[in-house]
């Protein structure tokens, strides 16, 4: 079972895996391992097709391209596990940029302005969560409405014009544009690598949330709620609070991403992030999150967005026109979900045989 491994795989001793046979047969580990293989295979093929592909520069660009989005993917994965969804993430990312940017232009220091931007995003999350939990509307339709509302607010605040934030102090721009040297020459690497700060922030977020999702009691309740909401209620879990928390968490992480984008671009365009939600949901689903809730892993979701990024980069290097890139990305999503579904039904059938 995917959640079983999501929760326990890394911690289970090899001997126990042998004994139960659950480790290697587990679909989640197969999925994550499979995703990794696909990504590596793609890299090998591309290294023959384009001499630039394996360069550090290209790798860094690929990592950069998905690291900030990856923070939103983390939030979306948690949300999918609890059985909800958020279509407003693209708008909320932009909202954080625009609010923080406006606050900065009004004379507030950039760090405080960033906190204001993140708080504004969290407020959007609180509003959505209220409609979902207090009134009982589906998160799909609530977040669809907020996607439009928040985008409208972004345009209203900026009068439709991008905010120019060149005056951001270098200390702040560093979190979006700076790099730290990574000296691995003692391990036999040829050069000192300049690792962008955003990638480090992304890695910290991923590691922290991967740990939390597997171990923290709060996130365990997320799995219970998503797996069977009624059974969770009948276990004394206040499922509405859990859902509220997840929705606000996703919006807050979108806010964090928005602030990082602002630092990286030194600008706040009110049309930024249109269509971002689709890429993010696709990544989480390719990585094994189920729209029915109850399953999903951070590692899988990150591999999902990495795969989409490698594909995009490859298609660009191969001079495939952007329109066709979309077609191919869609096909990959469809293939991933189809394979997953087929594996899942077969596994169910096996489970039934064992139960009988």
């Amino acid at each position, binding site marked *: 079972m995917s*959640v079983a491994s999501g929760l326990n795989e890394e911690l289970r001793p090899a001997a126990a895996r042998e004994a139960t046979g659950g480790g290697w047969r587990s679909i989640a580990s197969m999925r994550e391992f499979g995703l990794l293989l696909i990504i590596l295979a793609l890299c090998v093929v591309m290294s023959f097709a384009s001499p630039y592909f394996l360069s550090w520069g290209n790798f860094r660009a690929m990592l950069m391209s998905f690291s900030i989005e990856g923070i939103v993917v983390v939030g979306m994965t948690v949300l999918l596990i609890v059985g909800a969804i958020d279509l407003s993430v693209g708008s909320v990312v932009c909202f954080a940029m625009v609010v923080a940017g406006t606050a900065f232009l009004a004379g507030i220091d950039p760090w405080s302005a960033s906190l204001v931007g993140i708080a504004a995003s969290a407020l959007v999350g609180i509003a959505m969560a209220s409609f979902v939990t207090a009134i009982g509307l589906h998160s799909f339709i609530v977040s669809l409405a907020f996607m439009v509302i928040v985008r409208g607010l972004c345009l209203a605040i900026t009068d439709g014009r991008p905010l120019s934030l060149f005056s951001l102090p270098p200390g702040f721009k560093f979190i979006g544009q700076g790099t730290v040297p990574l000296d691995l020459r003692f391990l036999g690497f040829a050069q000192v690598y300049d690792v962008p700060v955003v990638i480090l922030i992304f890695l910290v977020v991923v590691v922290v949330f991967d740990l939390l999702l597997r171990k923290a*009691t709060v996130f365990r309740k997320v799995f219970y709620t998503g797996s069977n909401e009624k059974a969770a209620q*009948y276990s004394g879990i206040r499922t509405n609070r859990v859902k509220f928390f997840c929705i606000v968490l996703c919006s807050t992480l979108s806010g964090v991403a928005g602030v990082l984008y602002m630092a990286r671009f030194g600008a706040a365009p009110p049309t930024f992030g249109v269509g971002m939600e689709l890429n993010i949901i696709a990544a989480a689903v390719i990585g094994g999150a189920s729209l029915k809730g109850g399953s999903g892993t951070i590692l899988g979701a990150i591999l999902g967005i990495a795969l989409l990024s490698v594909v995009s980069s490859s298609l660009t290097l191969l001079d495939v026109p952007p329109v066709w890139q979309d077609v191919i990305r869609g096909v990959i999503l469809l293939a991933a979900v189809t394979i997953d579904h087929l594996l899942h039904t077969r596994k169910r059938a096996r489970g039934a045989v064992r139960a009988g």
Partner: protein
Amino acid sequence: MPPLALEVRNVSKSFGPVRALDGVSFSLRKGEVHALMGENGAGKSTLMNIIDGILRPDGGEILVDGRSVEIASPQKAHELGIGLVHQEIALCPDISVAENISMAATNSRSAWLMDYRELRQRAGTILASLADIDPQALVGELSISEQQIVEIAKALALDCSILILDEPTAALTEREAGKLFGIIAQLKARGISIIYISHRMAEVFAHCDRISVLRDGRYICTEEVAATTQEEIVRRMVGRHLGDIYPAKNPGSIDAPVLMAVSGLSDSDRVRDVSFELRRGEVLGIAGLIGAGRTEIALGICGLNRLTAGKVEFEGREVTPRSYAESIANGIVYLSEDRKGAGVFVDLPIAVNVSALAIDRVASAGFVSRAKEQAQAKSLADQLRLKRGSLDDAASTLSGGNQQKVALAKLLSVCPKAIILDEPTRGVDIGAKAEIHRILRELASGGTGIVAISSELPELIGLCDRVLVVHEGRIAGEVSGDELNEEAIMRLASGLAIEGQEAR
């Protein structure tokens, strides 16, 4: 002797090893209202589903108008003029009455386009003879009794000559039921033969011509209503011995100190002014017909349903809960009757299931400790003799009985002082059932208060020290000691005893 509309000869049906029907014969005269009675699980629904073509019999013969027929599908049943009105209302709430009534008829027509005018006229004609319902109203806007009438109209739209009504009054108030009986009399006058399934003695004796009784999948008898009594029928329905081995009871519990006292419990739906006491070390049963409000009483006590009145006292202090979490903290836990829907997380590992009720017990500083979680699951699994592979296997890999043990282990993980179990052995095989009974009795011996809700009378009688009987949301009475038998429970559950009191 009037001619027979329907005759069932020697029909049998098994589900796996369970024999649901064993050589049942039954005949329905033209134009009669024939009651079919029996306890839950006696085989009534199975027999009706066979007559309606939903299930195929393993053996036996069915004759309609004297001709042997094979009813392979509900559609075939329609062609033969058989209409079944299910216990649960199965209408589409968002479309009109007329369209609902013609649903099955539309399905068997080959025209591409709907003729709405004809549809409305037809529905109007059928409804006109039944009740004053607008064919263009949406079904969702009707009351439950009106929906019941639409269900009947739907069956009549297929020109049925045999109408089966499966507990049609279960969801109706007395006045609404009265209307329904008027309609039944009308249909009877039109020559339609009716099979009427109900648990309510009074209405059966007032409105039916004959009564057939099933018990344990076997045909017991058919009596003319005029020639029998309610007592006689109850005796026929339950007359069997307790062949099972149940654990020894605890007669001393009658005098044990009170653990939980419930007083004046009411909710907005089913529960009306329920009061009772649960003693330490006692296994208290709650009996009643399906829909009588047994589950709702349990949900109210545990804070899973909102109460409108009443309070729960536990170990002498008031603990009326506002949420189930609060109830768990007080040591009162509930096992749902719906194992797959609300009892276990089928996709999650066994160990993760067991810790769901109190995740903090296996965690430190907000992080789940895998070692503690596994140790807890292992100790409870051993205590309950759970047959399993790994504790990391999903609960779905277990049999029904073992899944139920997982659900039970989940409750025991918080060391509860009172456990309310709703149908604790439903869908569980006999071996696991006896084990669950043993476990419950052991828990009671350890001082835990056990409340067991069950539709199975032998289970209640064999397991419980005392049984409360619920009738239409109220406690109709209590039976214990030598009086604890099926007859006494059925009398109370069907409202017989109360009616008797009123008459006095």
